[in-house]
């Protein structure tokens, strides 16, 4: 399960970022922010090769000693980043993909809310619930 889940706007500011409360939130912010480098690299690489039909899932962005960072980019260039503990070896690529899909669906619901102003930080409880379901249950 994830230790940190972030939604980043097209302009690269965070729309939503939540991490496991027991851990150093700041560190995750740094990690997610730095991962944007790789996201951008991958997007531009994909853009060159494939045109429109691109894969939204970007795969493992980069591993660190403690975490694995996975990325996903919607067609509107909103980025999802999921950070997983490296010690969690049971997670398969497919599970990460399905997490992203779930996240994307929930994000779409948020965007469909007529009272939500696109570009504002996400405060939807439903979205929060989905994210909570994907986060590590600690304690």
């Amino acid at each position, binding site marked *: 399960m994830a230790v940190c889940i972030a939604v980043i*706007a097209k*302009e*690269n*500011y*965070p*729309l939503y970022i939540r991490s496991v409360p027991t851990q150093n*939130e*700041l560190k995750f*912010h*740094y990690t997610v*922010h*730095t991962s*944007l*480098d*790789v996201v*951008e*690299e991958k997007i531009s690489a994909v853009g060159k090769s494939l045109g429109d039909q691109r894969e939204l899932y970007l795969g493992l962005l*980069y*591993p*660190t*000693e*403690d975490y694995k960072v996975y990325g996903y980019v919607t067609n509107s260039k909103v980025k999802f980043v999921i950070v997983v503990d*490296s*010690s969690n*070896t049971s997670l398969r690529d497919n599970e990460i993909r399905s997490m992203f899909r779930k996240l994307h669906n929930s994000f779409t619901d948020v965007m469909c809310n007529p009272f939500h102003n696109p*570009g*504002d*930080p996400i405060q939807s409880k439903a979205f929060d619930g989905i994210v909570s379901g994907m986060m590590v249950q600690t304690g």
Partner: protein
Amino acid sequence: ESVLAKPQHPLLHSQRFSASPCAGDQSLFTSLYTSLAQQLPREPMEWRRTYGRAPKMIHLEANFVQFKEELLPKEGNKALLTFPFLHIYWTDCCDTEVYKSLVKEDMLRWQNSLRAHGSADWVIIVVETNDNKKKNKTNILPRSSIVDKIRSDFCNKQNDRCVVLSDPLKDSSRSQESWNSLLLKLRTLLLMSFTKNLGRFEDDMRTLREKRTQPGWSFCEYFMVQEELAFVFEMLQQFEDALVQYDELDALFTQYVLNFGAGGNFGWSGLLLRRPIDMEKRDGIQRGEASLLDLRSYLFSRQCTLLIFLQRPWEVTQRALELLHNCVQELRLLEVSVLEGALDCWVFLSCLEVLHRIEGCCDQAQLAANCSHTVGLWAYATDKLKSLGELCGLVSEKEPTSEDLNRTVDLLAGLGDERPETVNSLQSPYKKLKEALSSVEAFERHYLELSHAAMEMYRAIGRLRSARLVGKSLAEFYMRKADPERAETFLQEALKSYVSEGWSLPVTHTRKQIAACQKLLGRTEDYLQTSALLAGDVNLTTEERKHFCQEILTFAGKSGDQSQKVTLSMGVFTQLTRLQFRPATASVHSGAVLQVELTLRCLMPVSVHIQQLAASIHFDLERGGTNGRSKGTQRQTNPGTVEFHQSNSSAGPPSSSAAGPPLELDEIQDRSPSDNSLNSTGVVCKNTHLVMRRHDSHSPPDTPNCVSPPAVAMKEGAQMLKVQDVTLEPGNNSIIFTAPSGQPGTYTLRQLYATVGQVQFVLPHIYPSVQYEVYSQEPQLTVEPLSEPLLAGLPQMVKFTLLTGHYTVKKGDALQLSNTDTMPILPSSSCTARISNPLVGESVLSIQSSEKVTSISLPPTPPYHTLEFHLEVLCLIPSGDERPANERLTNGEMSIDCPWSIYSTLLALTFYIPFKTKHSLLSAGNRKYIQVCVQNVSDVNFTLAEVKLTEKQHATLELQSLNTKTQQLLCSKHSVFCLWEVRWKDDLPSCLQCVFSADFSPLNQDISAFKPFHYQFQFERVTTLYSVRADILPPAGEQHCRSGLLCGLEVCITRLTEPAEGELAEDSKTDTDGLKTTKLMYEVADSSSNWAVCGKSSGMVSMPMAASATHKVQIEVMPLFAGHLPFPKIKVLKYLPHTAAVAIQPDPDSCVENDSLSLLDKALDDQGDTASIRSRGSVHSVGSGDQQQKGVAMPRLEPFSPGQVFNHSYTQQVLVLPATDDHIMEVNAT
């Protein structure tokens, strides 16, 4: 007789295939060995593989060893490399005897031992030479017989197990051919055996792997087995397959670690990639003594070697990073107790080793192009070195303590001795680490080198965020080394990136570091600015925020000299959210009170006392006139309340810079300067400079997010809004200023200052711009009707409005109105004035009238008040001709002298006469009637009373009223007709001067309200001079006229009166016989085509100027229709001979027209229009206008005045019967 070659062990580099133990004639084999070994791998063979794997072409290469029984593999052998795949027996025996006695026996022994070990892969090679044949000619046997014998003895239905090689040492085609077939046979058999044995080996291996869950299973054992397979593939140059073996092992090991765990003591000397096979580690594994790291290291070194063979060096780096991360994780998972820092050492060394290995096989250009693959390792190494340095006390200003030194020594000891491969090279990871840990200086050098390398690589591949993160880490290092100056550069760069992308937590964290930095550097202003930002940062705890706030307040509280004043940007301290004007119009007259309420959101965590809060004002002298109200419309665009949209605080997304500022639109109207009419209108964008700015520029607008505080220039305005000693509580505060409003003009708020001791917070621009206006107004007096329209003749209320403007009305000030006769001011006893601003006050007004002047004493009124009072005035209706045609009266110019001006104000009021009157003279023979029509044109209903008509000159004349009512209602837009009969005694005067008078008052008012109304008019030539009588005579013998038949029209003109004096002089001439005659012209005209005039229709008549003179005229007319036909019209006109003096007398029509008070602006030029005359019902018989007045010298016709000619037969009708032909019935409906 058997040949053995020592097998190499292991055979990794030899590229040899496998051992083929040989038996038989050793000397023979030795002679053939060279060419055999050379030629065997020359041709590739197709290798078909089991499990559906793709076939491959491989070159077989063999190692030949002499056959020894002990070399044969025993049961359960796992060694594939030294496995004897094919057993060969060499013989050149051609002698049957020798064969029988020796060779056969030897072969049998060989076969038996092979069978004993279950090996079925063998071949017997018989070498034939011509020499042999020749030598043995004596007991010659057919050559084939030996081969046949061998075949029958050994090759039981396996004829291919015996091969003949002919003349191998000769260079002949026969020899070549036999070589080729031998080689092919050997290759085929070798491959067959290899495939079979490899398959068996793989099956065994799988079986072994399946047992891994059983107790006692050893991973190391299994490792050796599968590695054997990898070796084989590697020898076959099937590196891909070899790599797969290691990858499988790797995966299996990972699982194994997770499920069972392994561990033990280990060193941390890092990966070793210089040798193809690290035999030391391999032996360890073989003995089952390897530690986790050993195993991993060994596995990786093998994978690395294979990948480099495969020319995939970049995969090495990627795998290396994964491996290192993985190992660290595994050790943590296994809870292996490790000396602190040991892992870091291992990782560091390994990273460098991998990089070194990669550098060894790539050139510089390749490396540079692929730094995206290596940079991870660089960064990781940097990281690890840093933590090592911290551990060993090398990251500080001071030297490491003894404790640190002990730790260093322990760590270095764990490294062991340097490997022999690198002992002699100048640089090696080992040496680097050792040196880095040796001293503070060396550490710094190495660390910086690594950091910069990593940063540069990140930059080169465009990973700027990663580069900045490394930079931040470097900054932290510099801070530890007490070098804040260098640290700040990196921190600022990182901060800029976080701010521009709106990552609040990193912003806060970095800013905190910068604050520490700036404090160390003693950059007070910057430090305070950063502190202010942090004090308002919601990401921090209240304690931290209070701390930073206190830092500012402490500084502010210091009593220092003026030079120590610090100016900070206000946005971080408090935000201006709203500005409200009171009054909301933001426009006051000079001297009035204008309040400005500021709403400030204080971001500080504690309440802050401010000595002074001030806003500087830019003053613009108002352009144009200062008359105030004229700019009213423009002023409305100043909203009373201005909301300031905050560029988000540091916590929010940088939406303002990303999405651009919102458009600020304004309506513009282009009006013509002359008449203020609208030419065009449109919408303008007020902030194009912001909207149109390039968005890709990286500097956001000077928001409080800015890395460094914006340069704040304090502009000392001459005027200021000031408030002393305010305390700003956290959150919204409301502060009220009283704005200066002395001079008229536009005041624009520019900057806002808050002074807290030595610190001044400045808001450099108040945007959107806020301004208010102060205007000055001249006193203005307006006089306007209380109700429109003003009616003449009745007392009317007029409203005086005095806007005092800047003028103070003092006691004794009075308005002097010059009296005019036409419009007297009616004195009123109780006249009150209202004074408003807008509060209402009342005071009594005293009015004194003298002959020429009416003086109105004004009550004292302060400036910018409105004084309002009503005055009753009456506009007299002029009775006579001077009355304008359109009933509009302007009461001339009444002038008012005002105390504030030397000039008189001219007052012009327009009154309307409520009535339109017209008069007409009616005649009946000699009798005369006067009709007056009064039409009410106003909107008011009136009562008319005392309707009278008088004649001014002739006392004998009696005007008898035929009006019955004394009072008459005259409704709006209605008319009243009054009629008098004129009676006279002697003579009817030719000219009547009449005055019509009536009293009128608005309906339902009492008698006293009646006002007189007079109307003068006159008639001339009233007397009836002639009577005209017409008669129609039916044709002779007929009783009635008949249509189509001629009738006689008899016109009889009779003079009724004696000529008057005026008439004689005017238009008569004396006849030859002394009689005075006048010439008349008659004309019979039928306008309605009822009659046809036959013969002469007009003629001249000479009338004697005496009473009763009669003239008869006979005219033939024919009725055209049957029925009651009106008589044809008979006109009688004066005929003036050309000698007669031209007397321009009023046109008969204009006589009527003059008094016919038609619609206001109707032109009077329609005399010729007979219809209009008829419609008015006038009685005179002369219908058509006279156009001949122009020709003065010519004789001309002149019509009579109305009433001068009376036509008796006017409107008379005669019965006309239809024509006798009664077949035709004419029905005429008209």
